[in-house]
């Protein structure tokens, strides 16, 4: 069964981007340090491949997902990866207002809610998992109880300031279960399944 898996690189103090993140500088000041575990590829996603075994394991799983859900902010920062994140799988974007102009590749805007967006992505992915990117969208998914797995690349770094992954989730606890921890000097890859009450 397809699961929605959040992939995010986070500093130990909880940041996924440095301050001043803009389209010109999507990861903010010093934020590129968070993505060093990916290795140094080229301009597109496929150009990367981590230099160590734990990183490659996670990266290969990420690249074998059957659909992508991304927040609009993240998507626009990277021009929706030119319409192709990997292998031409469809990219779903939850939004309140779809853009007027056409977009390259298979980018689909979904305006009838996050749960519907995730359901459509899972249908498209078949028996493969769905990759989720974006802090705000991850929080929306948690609140709607549709996020199944967190794959956190915990980077050994205190960034000090920037944009947080978990912010304003609200007062309800969400229990997790650690199902894997892969250790490397570049990042600790922690995989948690979400246990909704």
């Amino acid at each position, binding site marked *: 069964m397809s699961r929605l898996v959040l992939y995010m690189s986070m500093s130990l103090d909880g940041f996924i981007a440095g301050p001043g993140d803009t389209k010109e500088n999507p990861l903010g000041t010093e934020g590129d340090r968070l993505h060093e575990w990916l290795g140094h590829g080229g301009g597109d996603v496929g150009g990367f491949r981590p230099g160590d075994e734990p990183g490659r394991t996670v990266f290969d799983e990420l690249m074998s997902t059957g659909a992508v859900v991304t927040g609009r902010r993240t998507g626009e920062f990277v021009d929706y990866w030119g319409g192709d994140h990997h292998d031409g799988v469809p990219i779903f974007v939850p939004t309140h207002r779809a853009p007027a102009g056409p977009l390259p590749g298979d980018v689909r805007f979904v305006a009838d809610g996050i749960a519907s967006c995730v359901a459509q992505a899972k249908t498209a992915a078949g028996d493969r998992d769905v990759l989720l990117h974006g802090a705000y969208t991850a929080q929306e998914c948690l609140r709607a109880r549709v996020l199944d797995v967190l794959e956190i690349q915990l980077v050994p770094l205190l960034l000090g300031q920037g944009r947080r992954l978990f912010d304003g989730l609200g007062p309800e606890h969400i229990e997790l279960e650690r199902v894997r*921890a892969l250790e490397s000097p570049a990042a600790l890859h922690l995989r948690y399944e979400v246990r909704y009450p």
Partner: protein
Amino acid sequence: MSAPIRLYMSMSLDGFIAGPDDRTGQELGRDGGRLFNWLDDRMSDGPSGQVYREALATGAVISGRRTFELAGRWQGDHHDGVPILVLTHHVDDGDVPPGSAQFVTDVADCAERARAGAGDRAVMMHGAGAAQALLRAGLLDEMEIHLVQVLLGGGRRLFDALGPDHTELELVRVLEARDVTHLRYRVRRRP
């Protein structure tokens, strides 16, 4: 190298060390007790027992004032009567802390006295505010983070407003235990 000053803190995956509204009578904040369930295994032979025993083998304690007061000043004895250095901004006239506790207002002085008191043993440190003060002063050597598998959603953060200088860490140990992952980091000195 002398024995390290090591921060010990339980933290949720979303970065909280206490629930919302932590105060006297509700020391851990609302539902903050969730972060300490792993201590049920403190007497076990497993990793949580190991980490607990290591913490109690430290030779001195540094605590923030807030933590010290919330803990009822530990009645002057955190463990084995080792020195307790309480980092604070202000000491009231005539306020003498109990037992082996003493107030210190200077962060460097605090670290130095703790190291001297601990001898060849490590120094245990508690408290978010004090930890940030030692980090900024470049005096914190290690962190043992008990990363609890829960999203608390709100409360008091361990790392807040550290400022623009980032700090590189080195992950030196991962112990997977029931409900928690014990992460030990070494703080890398800025060049």
